[in-house]
């Protein structure tokens, strides 16, 4: 099958890859650009482990085709920290023990960051509904919710 040449921006850098039209953005990120921080938990849009932003919009990269990334601005977990400085969310996840196995963590961080950008002061309920598309099987969500709320508070103070 002939491949399509895609030019896009990933975490601020220009990126190019060749893909079949049926390949997902997630597969392209992982297999062609070797950005394996985004995970595939389901491939059907149900788990959020593959969460990335495309032009600042939160999407499941398993539900988007690689060819649709043409000319777009993609952000993944690998681009979240600023050099060696973690974002408050990342630091709070470690501090609050908000990860056990950690496989859901990249997606939950990307999704939480996207929420806090829109709504810097979410209620617990708003946060729980926002994250309802991000499955975590290990933690029961308690420490995740606490970590995000705490990070949000810190970000409000410093902004």
């Amino acid at each position: 099958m002939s491949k399509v040449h895609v030019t896009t921006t990933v975490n601020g850098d220009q990126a190019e890859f060749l893909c079949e039209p049926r390949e997902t953005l997630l597969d392209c990120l992982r297999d062609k650009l070797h950005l394996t921080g985004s995970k595939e938990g389901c491939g059907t849009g149900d788990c959020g482990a593959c969460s990335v932003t495309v032009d600042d919009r939160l999407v499941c990269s398993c539900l988007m085709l690689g060819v649709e990334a043409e000319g777009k601005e993609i952000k993944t977990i690998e681009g979240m920290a600023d050099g060696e400085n973690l974002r408050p969310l990342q630091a709070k996840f470690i501090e609050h023990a908000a990860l056990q196995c950690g496989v859901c963590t990249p997606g939950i961080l990307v999704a939480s960051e996207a929420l806090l950008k829109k709504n810097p002061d979410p209620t617990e309920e708003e946060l729980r509904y926002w994250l309802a598309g991000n499955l975590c099987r290990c933690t029961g969500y308690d420490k995740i919710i606490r970590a995000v709320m705490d990070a949000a508070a810190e970000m409000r103070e410093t902004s």
Partner: protein
Amino acid sequence: MALDNKNNEFKVIGSTPNRPDGLDKVTGRARFGADISVPGMLHGAVVRSPHAHAKIVKIDASKALAMKGVKAVITRADFPEGLEGEDWNLQENAMAGEKALYDGHAVAAVAATSPLAARDAAKLIEVEYEVLLHVTDVDEAMKDGAPAIREGAADYSVPEGLHPNVVRFFDTGMGDLDKGFAEADLVVERSYTTEAAHQGYIEPHACLGQMGADGRGELWCCTQGHWFIRRMSTAVLGVETTNIRVTPSEIGGGFGGKTTITIEPLSLALSRKAGGAPVKMVMNRGEVLRATGPTSSASMDIKMGMTKDGKITAAHGTFRMQGGAFPGAPVDVTTMLAFANYTIENVHHIGYDVITNRPKQAAYRAPGAPMAAFAVESTVDEMCRTLGLDPIETRLKNASRDGTRSTFGPKFGPVGLVESLEAARDHANYKMPLGPNQGRGVASGYWMNWGGETSASVAMSEDGTVTVSVGTPDIGGSRASMALMAAEAFGIAYENVRVNISDTGALGVNEPTHGSRATYASGLATIKAAEECITKMCKRAADKWGIDADAVIWEDGSAKPSGPNAGEFDPLSIGEICAEMGETGGPISGHYEGSPTGFSGSFGTHVVDVEIDPETGHTTVLRYLVVQDAGKAIHPAYVEGQFQGGAAQGIGWALNEEYIYGEDGRLQNPVFLDYRIPVASDLPMIDTVIVEVPNPGHPYGVRGVGETGITPPLPALANAIADATGLRMRGLPMTPPKILAALKAQKNG
């Protein structure tokens, strides 16, 4: 073994430092099973049976093999014959032989140059089936006329006259049941069912296998126990165990489901056939749900007797469980632990392990315990309600405690059931006022914990820092726990300890991270290996000072002269001793090899408040409390995490999760949308209380906390729903349609 530190005056144990692998896991750098790639790698895909039970007439791979980029196709013909027992079961499950035994059973696999090519090729492999009658329900599978899945699968324990699908039988008990029931003022007899639930780890199984024509090679995979994977994979392939070195990746959840093999031997077999090129295989979610083991489903009858003042006089339980197409449903554990919360003189358990056309069950957190807990704790709750007794006081009255005989035989040592019940009773959640349609449920649970084969090393570095090597993969922060225990043993800072999860080439055999054993057994091994290092460092100091090694003590990270020499020499710090070790006798390391037997079980009590929507039958969990005995919490935040995660899984099992099979024997819900695990908006905060009744069999009192927490939620929720509505739900999951139907039936009298 004596408790080294009776007064629990710890320096670092009990603190909550950041986990060493935290940075990798919040930046996307941590490499999980599917994240590993090597040059020259091929990709594998599996052909799976669409039928629940079918004879495999013919497999034609010619079209696939003709496809560009396809390098190898394997079927059962590529595996050795003549395996027996569980090795044969594992082989048959990894790749079907004469028959496909369940929807999703692997029948062939292919390796190609890209994941897409492999998937396309798999579709071109033509399999001709002759469809057979199937059975997926445990009660149906035991009935006369049910299709026999495999004649001769039963072992010696099964009495004559039972259906050939009954493959193991358990019958244990003590006391005099008739006498016990005669002493009771109330005797209740009830039946219950639970459906199969999947572990639901978010990371699907993934591996990368490489094996040459000489049968030697390597395997990278996400697993709870790489020595288990090594033994099972090599047995299935008919090669020597040490031929394959297995390296564990980071693991995205396991909960018991990643203690066994699925695609691992397939990747090795494909690699060998493809001339030794490494083959990567990654399951999709549908494959995980259809073809890897969920837990058993169960059908149970409970009969219990109680006096007016709440003393349990007798108990009888019958447990029928299916574990898929192979023996192995955890009925042994179910029967053993069914009544373990209580001291009962007259008790009897009967268990049936039944095979059906479903995937081979795998361990799932406290395997076998939650089903029985649902039945028994629901029955006890019903009796308390009938007799007007408080559920916690009644449990306290009958509670297992230090010195009482367990319902499975041995006497308990120090255990924390009474403490957990008292803490639950005294917690604010137990006193919160309830509104209309709201109810409160209580239940307790138990897991006996485990030691198991354990091998660990501790090596001193030139700068006085320490490397700990263990063989139990870190699924929930265990590197942090190991580092804390090593830091405590050496008297050094947590940051000065580095913990490796070693591959099978670097240590002796280790059982998996299962049975709630990692913190207990690898922790004990770490402490013992550290003590060996300390002994050696004291000897180096003694030699330097020219005194007897016995006259040197280790305190706060330094060797110090003691007894008559006390104060005579300046202490030698760990850093000073290690800086010189090259000249004073060479490297210093310590080891532990053993199967520690001082493990001790963990009891817990949960209290849940729910609200039932009378319009929809939907259950909202308003608040949730977990109280559990940790023995000693090494890193309390990760102990709480285990409590909370176990509770959430139990809530899912109780309210939502189930394997749904159609008339055709196919799994109807092999996607996360339909196999619905709890999401953030389904749950409240999960409150925790850590009870600490030290385990005398661990230097620091550790018990192991991973499994108990999934057990109480099933009955606690049923009891809360009963409190809210007066409805006694005896079949899981308690979904909105079921509750709504029961509410309607209740209304119509």
